[in-house]
Each structure stands twice: as structure tokens, then as C-alpha cells.
């Protein structure tokens, strides 16, 4: 039996979430992390779209409430990506590298004057 469209899309969404999480964890470069965040976000947005589709009624193609939530979340995530990219550019401009690894562990030798 073929799975229906919503199940298929839901599985795709889950795959996107998994890919996004994986990228977020393993890639050390911030730009890749930002891209992974977007993939993760798109997976979650797709889950929301599937929920809207499943809740369709009264002659609509989908439940309009999750669609409204979705468009808001997309705007917020877009703003987040823009802020992250701008900060990254500034970091590169200021330091010449883009690593966000933490500084050397605290509690070492006393610094000089």
C-alpha cells in the first residue's frame, strides 16, 4: 500500500530535521551551522505544513492557523539567519578567522601586566 502524501511529507520532514541536527552538531564552521539551522528549520516548517494539511476542513486545502504560525516562524527564522550571517561577517572582518571554538580553558597561569 502506498503511504499517503502527508505521511510521505512527514517522513521527508523528519529526514530534514535529522540532517539539520547532524550538521549543527558536527560541522565546526559557523556558516555550515547556519545552513544546518536552516535545514533543521525547514524540516520543522514542513512538519507544520503537514499538520495544516491534515487538519483541512470546511472546504479549505488546509487548516489556516498552522499556516499563519508557519509564515511567522519563517520570518523569525529568516531574521535569525540574517543576524547570524551579519555577526559572522563582522567576526571575520574583526579577527580574520571564523572559528567559534571556546577560548583556552580558564584557570591557567596568571597573566602578566
Amino acid at each position, binding site marked *: 500500500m502506498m503511504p499517503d502524501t502527508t505521511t510521505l511529507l512527514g517522513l521527508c520532514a523528519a529526514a530534514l530535521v535529522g540532517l539539520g541536527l547532524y550538521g*549543527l552538531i558536527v560541522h565546526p564552521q559557523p556558516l555550515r551551522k547556519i545552513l544546518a*539551522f536552516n535545514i533543521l528549520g525547514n524540516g520543522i516548517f514542513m512538519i507544520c505544513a503537514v499538520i495544516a494539511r491534515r487538519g483541512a476542513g470546511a472546504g479549505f486545502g488546509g*487548516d489556516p492557523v498552522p499556516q499563519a504560525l508557519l509564515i511567522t516562524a519563517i520570518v523569525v527564522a529568516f531574521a*535569525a539567519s540574517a543576524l547570524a550571517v551579519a555577526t559572522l561577517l563582522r567576526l571575520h572582518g574583526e579577527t580574520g578567522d571564523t572559528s567559534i571554538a571556546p577560548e583556552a580553558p*580558564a584557570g591557567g597561569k596568571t*597573566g602578566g601586566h
Partner: protein
Amino acid sequence: MTAGLQDITTPGGLLLVLAVLLPVIGLLAGLVLGGRHARSAALVTIAAGLAVALAVADAVLVSGGTLVYLMGGWAPPLGVLLRADGLSAAMMLAAAVVVAGIAVYAGRDFGTARGEPESRRSLAFWLLLLAVWSGLNLVFVTRDLFTGYVALEMLTFAAVPLVCLDGKGETIRAALRYLLFALAGSMLYLLGVFLLYGMYGTVDMALLAERAGPDVTTIAAIALLTLGLAAKTALFPLHLWLPPAHSGAPPAASAILSGLVVKGSWFLVVRIWLDVFPGVVTVTSAELLAAFGAAAILAGNLVALRQQRLKLLVAYSTVAQIGYLFVMFPLAAGLTAAGLDDAPARSAGLLQAVSHALAKAAMFMAAGLIYKSVGHDRIAELAGSARAMPLTLLTFALAGIALMGLPPGGAYAAKKLFFDSTAATGLGWLEVVLNAGAFLTAGYTVLVLAHALRPAGALLKLESRPSRVGELSALALALASLLLGCAAADMIPGASLAGAFTPAGILSALLILAGGVAIAGAFGLQLPWAGRGGGPAAALVALRRLTVAVGVLVVRADGALRQWPVATTTLLLAALAFAAVIAAGT
């Protein structure tokens, strides 16, 4: 709950809209007026916002009502409802007081004098301060999880640039790390919200509380919401971004970040665990949440003792204090499970949060004044600073005493409420951790003060005199935190200070201070009394070697946990653990 009755805009409901929108209006006005006048716009807005917060507190806390506002007259599930109960009103008032204190303090650092060119740094500070405030107020009054998401993102987007106001490479790095980790948390939270909508067709808290049952999707959603928020709150071991971000920001910005911003995401955890799903979460899962808090208290305080920089010490103190905010959950769950009112847990959590907001803002302000006047914040080289700037060090000491939970502080009242209820809920282990936390907090406070009180060879030469207004505003916040217990004694049943000033009460307070001296001697990085006299006994040296080894071990472990892959993996594993524990209990 009768959904129909409460879904009416009450008289005074407009105050809630004002609390959220006034800072935005001030922000826009400041943007138009430009750098020279942004500060005036902010100060006018803060005065107005303080009045609004007082009016809300009067209507809710004094008269004992709730304020409700229906946006556009639409009731949930379609509409968005704002409501202020006692918790919201108290947090709004605390936020307004802290914002006002910070604004007075920041006047000199971020003011633009006549003839001075405008700077983007000071314009950004005032606008972001207002943006943080608006986001916080929205978190406090919102009654739906999705608006909570938007409010938290507003809060994060305003907080991240505050970290790197100075524009130094290291602070931009800290800001980016903070933003990326917070975004990971946001996405988990958002997924939880969408899953709940898919199950119940609403994101309104009251409707969800009526409809939610202990099924797999709901449990998964609770775990995602909780861990997403924990990442944004920097609950140990998800604190990788907090120490560099909070210690690298300018002091006024650190006070906002440490005092206020972390309380936003914590507040939503309270809503979710106590108001939305009290029937779904189990006592065991709440104890797991408190176990993270207990680890935060122990590890955060120990690492604070091993810092050489004052601002990093204060930042790690925040890591520990965030732990205190999470010990209320098993108490609430235990009381609910026993069929009792969870009011003591709410009051304890609230007092802890407000007390920390005031005290930590004061502590960062004092640390900032020390940095600016002495020219550095290396703890071991602070000798003579107490004599050169006594008021600042007094503020630091008072803030430390408030954080330790000595009477009559708000944290003392919180602990008393907690201890009075632990008998009914069997949370003895948390009681032990809380007491240990008080000793450790006393330890780093004593350590800093002992260094500062040490006489310098010559009179310490200050680079600049600390600003008197700055000193006084920091002192006012520290005193407010210390006197919070007195206010609580009148308003909250069970929070009386009766036992505090009996001989036994005073003895236990002195015991905590004496324990602090011992802890400072055992774990402190550089001891102010080292290298004097004939040297301590061999047994003490051996003991010190052992305790230092423990301290170094904890610092190493903390460093490992703050690696990005470790922290993000922990985030996911912790979400799984929560889901498993809740599912096992139902």
C-alpha cells in the same frame, strides 16, 4: 477552568499592551531621534514603563485580581490573549526595577556629552535595552506557546548584540556562539509547539491544560519545549555560551543579560510545567530537571572559585544561580501529586528569580565599576581596592550575601519556603545541595572580599573615580535584593522572617560565612593569605592539595562540556531522557 468567563478584556487590560508596546515606541523614537537623544527617549520610556508595571502590580498583587486583554477582541483558540497573574505581575515589576537601575548606572558609560560625537555603541545600547524589556514583558503576559516563541526570539535577537557592543573579536565570537546555540534551542521549542498544535489544535495554554493527556506526542513535545528553553536559559550542562558572553559584555549589558534575559526562557518553563502540563509531567521527571539544577549549583560555584577574573567569576555564579531556579519544579510536582496547592513552590521560584535578578545586576555593576576604576579585574591583584572604593565593594558584599540566601534576602525567604515543604515531598537530597550551594557562594564572595580588603603597599592608584551615581544605583539594587525577604514576609504566607533573627538563625548565618572562609581556603585559585607567616600545618597543605585537585578536575570537566559537539549532543540526549522518564512514569 471556565474558559468563557476569563476570556473578557478586563478594565486595566490595556496596561498589558502598554507594558509590551511602550518600550517599542521608545525604541522607535530613539532610532528616529538618533544617538544624542536615544538616552533621553529611553529614560522617559523607562519612567513610563515603571509606572505601568506599578499599576499592574497594584491591580494584581495588591487587589488580588488578574488582568486580561484579548487582542482585537478575538478569544482563543483563534485569538491571542494576554493575561497577568501574580507571577507575571511580580516579574514585570522586578524587570522594570532592574531596567531602571541599569539605565541610571549606564548613564555615564553610554551617555553622549555635549560636543562629543554620537556613537553607534551608545545608540545600540539604549535601543537594545528597550527591546529586551519589551520581549521580557511579552514573555510574562503571553498565554500562548507560539507568542512565547516569538517573544523569546525578540529577547535573543536583542540580547546577542548586547554581548558584542564593544565590537572586539572575542566578544563577537561569544555573541555568535550564543546566537547559534540559542537558535538550536528555539528550533526544538518550535517543533514542540507544532507537535502540540497537531495533537490538540491549539497553542493556548489554558486550552492545552484542559485537553492534554499523557500520550507519546505530548510527552515528546514537553521534552522538546523544556530542553529548547533550557538551552536558552543556559541550564548546566548547556551553558557553553554563557560565561564568555556574560563576562565579555560591557557591565551594564552583562547586568541585563545575567539579571533579566535568562529569566525569560526560565519563566516559560515554569508556565509549561506548572500551568500547562501539571497533570502530565511526573515527580521523577521534575526531579531530573532539578538534578540538572543541582549539578549547576555545585559545578558553577566550584568553577567560579577557580577563576582569576572577577567578571568570569560573576558569570559562573550566574551558571550556579540558574540551577537554583530549577529546584522549584520537583517541589511543585510533589505538591500537585499529593493533592496540595503548589503555591509555596511558585512563591519560592519567584522569590529566587527576583532576588537573583536584583543581586546579580548589582554584582555585575560593581564588578564593572571595579574594572573601570582599577583598570583590570584580576582578583588576585585587587589589594587596596576596598579602601579606594568602599561603596563598590560594599555593594559586591551585599549582593553576595543576598545570593548566599542569608536573611533577610529574597533567596532566604525562597529557601525557607522550600525547606518547609520538603518534608511533604521527600526532597531531602535537594536540601543538602542547596545548603552546599550557600557555602560555595559564601566561598567566592569571601575570596573576592579578602583580596580586596588586603592592604596595598601604597595607596591604590585608581585610573578614574567610580561614578557616584553608578555606585548608588548598584547599591540600591543589592539592597532591594536583601530586603526582598521583608516584603515577601508581608505578602506571601509561610515566608516569614520569624526564625531568622533568633540566636539559632544568627548562628546558622554565621556558620555559612565561616564555611565560606573554609571553602575559599580549600578551593580558591589564589589565596589572599598565602605566603605570610610560618606556613600552614602539613595536614592542611595535603588537604588543600586534594581540594585543589577536585577544583581543577571540575574546571576540566566544565571545559569539556562547553565544547560545541558535546553540548549539542547533550541537548538531544537530555531531551530523550526527559521523554523516557515522563513516559516511564505514566
